[in-house]
């Protein structure tokens, strides 16, 4: 069988791609040959543990062939059919965005139009009038990812940059640094070598709002599954706390607690009450390392200003967990070596994306501090990071400024954005619609706690408003909140011109005036390392979520499909039209840029460019006597900090707080925000602004939790991969529409007359979403679970804020920020109601049909979507089979 094998990385992990005659045949994990050195061996409790000699990508990685040939690929440049290029930018039928069809355009026509509009707008309003924003992780690679090709282009052109909010770890970013520093890791701790520590020492794992088999180390595939299997086999007790008895929990938990959503901080306080009253904490450690512990302890035992003792009974009333169980939990934690944390790096998890998320994050850190954080077997470590690695091998990750083509030394010349105006991502619609927005904080505040309090105003003094939006990659319909406000924004004439540059025709592309088709990772060159998001940044050494370090030459497996082009090609060609083409490319091809990353990293010392590109990947060995730098051990044991990516003051035994200690009363908050009622100097449980104490709860009594998805990543996979529509825990395929599963407790389902498999409508004042009911004991009666970030945004009336049938539950979640001075999102503070849905629903409302319309409306020689797919051989049977299948489902 004559197959060409190339390699790549996607957000699901590294893959080997087999192609036959220019068509992708299969996508496999990378299985190592004998040239790859022996993997690490961890010796623990009389056993030896070593990983399998292959990469273990997530199942989403194995959909890459399907996604490349997907029915919803954007196949050629398109222009909205009722878009009029008026000279003043007015009267452009913007109200029809989202519902209008498109006509096919040539690349020249589309790029010329984009360049003309850029010049017109810049002349009229200045460079700040253009804004642009990326999604995250729709592609992988140091050249093509958002901080590289995109950033270089827009910084050279000048634009109003949009600050990302730390959407996956809000509460930790905005909370935890005030307790223990680590602002440079956005509130997350350091997990170096804690896998070894865990295997050797831990007795209890507290998996708080953590579903490791679902969130998969972020971008680490299924690498850590075996580690938890090993821990389980060693008899380590797994206690899961999550309003949803999640997929890791239901299979592996020794105990599951489902607190009422948003009350986790109350559970923390009740645990602390038990420890304080029963003396079950490390008093020496606290005496040495805690700041103003006694004041906080006073508050816990009922001597605070509220005069309420945070007893287990009090905890029971808020959380719904029996007081006896809370006591038992506190004692187990307080008397055994316990590691754990929230979410995949100990500082993530749906719980931190609630109205009380900062306070939970701070309290959780305080609990681990009380148990001597950093001592063997006692740490924040949630079993999905911290594998051994060779820290002396450096290859950049995407957030490393040294590893971006926007900057030297990869580029000869660093691109600098001359515009000083910003927007803030969660509130872009508010800013556009209201013409004014103000907020605190720089989004990602890795540079210092003070950055949380920087005042921002839009429009910036002396700046004009934004009138052009260039969206690149991925869709916010399904990842950002209050989806319908984005719909309203796109229909506003304030946005005179909207460009969308993406691979697939996902929910947001349909709101653009011009659509530019980008190709997938498999159709262009790039270079990158598995799960390496940066070795000096906010997720430093995230590749320790993998069992191997895998640097991959992301070879071009096939030529770009249809008329798509690489993002780099698109930017270079617009730059050319705007007069900075040569500066943008510096005369380099994409392959030559890739070589720069090899040249400027330690890779050059290990393997020649020729050998590397021929083999396709390089795996730095991790010698048996590799340096160990156990996370946080330096602090507990009082030696100068030796962990990678540390700050100077850590070498003096200090944390990154004002006092260098665990601050149980935060001096940084007393300094910057003493009157903030959302995030108080003493971290306290506060009922959510949208929770069971809200007036709204009378009307909308259910909590919706919409955590990071198991069957998707940033909405990229469900839309393009019909295979996964038939996974029963994900979706149900009815009448040509794949409906998302929503989980309802049996007693509430019975009250509402809802049966397994019924169509149900989740609704509140923001909108409604039709899902399919799964009746299950895996949620408590007060909670309904439906995954976020896995919607196929699909409103019944396109372009309107109508009922969604694609499972975009973000329609329901609040667009407001956690607090005035806490600019985080809180999707898991959503109230809503549910009812059986018996109304009419459109059949077969798939993008495929819409794209066919575009094709048929276009030039006469344009083939339909189905024909083009069939022309590529791969999905030959798909259309026919699906048509039959739909008939069957209807019958």
């Amino acid at each position: 069988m004559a197959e060409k094998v190339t390699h790549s990385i996607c957000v699901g992990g590294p893959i080997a791609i087999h192609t036959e005659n220019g068509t992708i045949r299969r996508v496999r994990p990378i299985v190592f040959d004998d040239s790859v050195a022996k993997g690490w061996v961890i010796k623990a409790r009389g056993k030896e543990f070593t990983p399998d000699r292959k990469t273990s990508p997530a199942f989403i990685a194995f959909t890459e062939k399907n996604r490349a040939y997907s029915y919803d690929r954007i196949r050629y440049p398109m222009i909205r059919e009722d878009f009029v290029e008026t000279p003043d930018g007015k009267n452009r039928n913007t109200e029809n965005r989202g519902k209008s069809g498109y006509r096919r355009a040539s690349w020249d026509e589309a790029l010329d139009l984009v360049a003309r509009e850029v010049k017109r707008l810049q002349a009229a309003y200045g460079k700040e009038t253009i804004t642009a924003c990326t999604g995250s992780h729709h592609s992988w690679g140091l050249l093509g990812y958002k901080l590289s090709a995109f950033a270089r282009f827009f910084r050279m052109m000048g634009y109003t940059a949009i600050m990302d909010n730390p959407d996956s770890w809000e509460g930790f970013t905005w909370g935890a640094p005030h307790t223990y520093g680590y602002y440079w890791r956005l509130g997350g701790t350091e997990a170096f070598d804690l896998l070894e520590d865990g295997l050797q020492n831990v007795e209890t794992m507290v998996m708080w709002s953590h579903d490791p088999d679902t969130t998969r180390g972020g971008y680490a595939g299924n690498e850590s599954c075996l580690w938890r299997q090993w821990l389980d086999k060693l008899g380590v007790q797994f206690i899961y706390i999550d309003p949803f008895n999640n997929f890791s929990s239901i299979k592996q938990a020794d105990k599951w607690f489902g607190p009422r959503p948003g009350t986790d901080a109350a559970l923390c306080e009740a645990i602390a009450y038990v420890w304080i009253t029963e003396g079950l904490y490390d008093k020496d450690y606290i005496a040495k390392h805690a700041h103003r512990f006694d004041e906080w302890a006073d508050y816990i035992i009922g001597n605070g200003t509220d005069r309420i003792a945070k007893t287990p009974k009090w905890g029971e009333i808020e959380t719904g967990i029996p007081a006896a169980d809370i006591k038992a939990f506190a004692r187990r934690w307080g008397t055994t070596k316990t590691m754990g944390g929230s979410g995949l790096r100990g500082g993530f998890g749906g719980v931190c994306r609630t109205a009380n998320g900062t306070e939970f994050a701070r309290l959780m850190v305080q609990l681990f501090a009380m148990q001597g954080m950093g001592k063997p077997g006692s740490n924040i470590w949630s079993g999905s990071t911290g594998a051994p690695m060779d820290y002396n091998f450096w290859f950049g990750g995407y957030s490393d400024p040294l590893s971006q083509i926007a900057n030297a030394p990869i580029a000869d010349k660093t691109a600098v954005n001359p515009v000083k105006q910003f927007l803030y991502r969660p509130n872009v619609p508010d800013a556009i619609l209201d013409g004014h927005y103000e907020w605190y904080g720089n989004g990602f505040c890795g540079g210092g706690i003070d950055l949380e309090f920087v005042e921002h105003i839009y429009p910036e003094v002396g700046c004009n408003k934004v009138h052009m939006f260039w969206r690149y990659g991925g869709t916010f319909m399904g990842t950002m909140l209050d989806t319908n406000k984005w719909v309203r924004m796109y229909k506003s004439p304030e946005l005179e011109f909207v460009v969308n540059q993406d691979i697939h025709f996902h929910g947001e592309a349909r709101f653009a005036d011009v659509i530019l088709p980008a190709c997938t990772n498999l159709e262009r060159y790039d270079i990158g390392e598995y799960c390496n998001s940066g070795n000096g940044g906010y997720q430093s050494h995230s590749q320790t979520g993998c069992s191997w370090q895998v640097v991959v030459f992301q070879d071009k497996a096939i030529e770009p499909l249809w008329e798509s082009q690489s993002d780099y090609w698109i930017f270079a060609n617009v730059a050319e039209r705007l007069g900075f083409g040569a500066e943008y490319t510096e005369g380099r091809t994409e392959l030559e840029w890739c070589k720069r990353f090899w040249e400027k990293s330690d890779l050059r010392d290990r393997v020649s460019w020729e050998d590397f590109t021929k083999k396709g990947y390089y795996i730095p060995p991790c010698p048996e006597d590799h340096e160990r730098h156990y996370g946080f051990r330096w602090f507990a044991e009082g030696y100068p900090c030796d962990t990678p990516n540390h700050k100077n003051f850590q070498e003096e035994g200090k944390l990154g707080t004002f006092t260098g200690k665990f601050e149980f009363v935060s001096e940084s908050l007393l300094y910057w925000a003493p009157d903030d009622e959302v995030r108080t100097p003493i971290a306290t449980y506060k009922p959510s602004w949208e929770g069971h104490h809200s007036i709204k709860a009378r009307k909308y009594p259910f909590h919706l939790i919409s955590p990071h998805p198991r069957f998707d990543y940033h909405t990229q996979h469900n839309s393009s991969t019909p295979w996964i529509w038939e996974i029963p825990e994900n979706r149900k395929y009815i009448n040509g529409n794949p409906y998302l599963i929503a989980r309802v407790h049996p007693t509430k389902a019975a009250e509402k007359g809802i049966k397994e498999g019924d169509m149900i409508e989740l609704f509140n004042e923001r909108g409604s979403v039709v899902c399919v009911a799964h009746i299950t004991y895996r949620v408590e009666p007060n909670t309904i679970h439906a995954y976020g970030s896995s919607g196929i945004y699909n409103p019944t009336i396109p372009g309107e804020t109508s009922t969604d049938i694609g499972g975009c539950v973000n329609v329901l979640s609040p667009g407001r920020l956690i607090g005035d001075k806490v600019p985080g999102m809180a999707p898991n503070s959503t109230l809503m109601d549910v009812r059986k849905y018996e109304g009419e629903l459109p059949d077969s409302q798939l993008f495929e049909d819409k794209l066919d319309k575009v094709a048929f409306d276009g030039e006469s020689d344009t083939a339909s979507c189905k024909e083009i797919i069939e022309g590529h051989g791969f999905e030959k049977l798909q259309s026919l089979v699906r048509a039959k299948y739909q008939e069957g489902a209807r019958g």
Partner: protein
Amino acid sequence: MRYGIAVDTAKCMACYCCFTVCKDEHCGFAGKYSAAQPMMGQFWINIVERERGDSSRRTKVETIPLLCSHCEDPACLKASRDGAVYKREDGIVIIDPEKSKGQSAIVEACPTGAVFWNEELEIPQKCTMCAELLDDPEYLAYLGDPKLKRPRCVEACPNRALIFGDLDDPDSDINKFIAAGKVTPLSGLEGQKTNVVHLNIPTVFLAGTVYRPVAEEEVAIGAKVKLTSAETEEVWETETNYFGDWEVEGLPKNKPIDIEITFDGFETVNLSAVTDTDHYVAQTYLEAK
């Protein structure tokens, strides 16, 4: 040489890697041993997730990767005509994509539902154990023994839940793997020899929690829990753990079970349950003697 796959249902985390690579290998691509799998509606390896329990207090899941068992004496072969189903020398059961045309009896004969009907081509289809790849001398990936390649599903499994190998070799990894677990045939295949061997499929659990008297708001740790089946005369003994929880897994199905909970200084509590399905029996509150 008899190729087999051992499936440890206890280790399967339902990650859907096997499911997806199977689609990747067979959807839209015909081979020597099979016509193309349709894009939708067929699952040559499927993950059957069954939630267990009747209370949020204790819910577990049974996770069964379900594929053709490649039976020693296949019912589908017996139901077929004209040699449409045959066994290779290595034990892999193949449905000939041409000879089987129109033979829907092959689908109906399978006791586990692992054979699918292709409406368009009017043929039965199922797992080939990736026979074509196993036969290909150039298909290079391996783990361990370079002479022994693996089906796609086994290669992609991150949990060591699927193990491939030679069942005739007593020293093979697959035989060691099977010996370390408990063989639990799929429903409908009891007593039959199969080349796909399922391990550790659970039967029924009973569970509960024991608390000290209500007013104390304390769990009872170390209470003795004794389960008895009068019918089989079997006895299971356990103790409540640090959460006051007790649980007995692997009980025989459809038996009445007597439960006796004893704790020094408190009245004995007697409960009963039937193992028709998994039950969280009770939150039991002790009363002082």
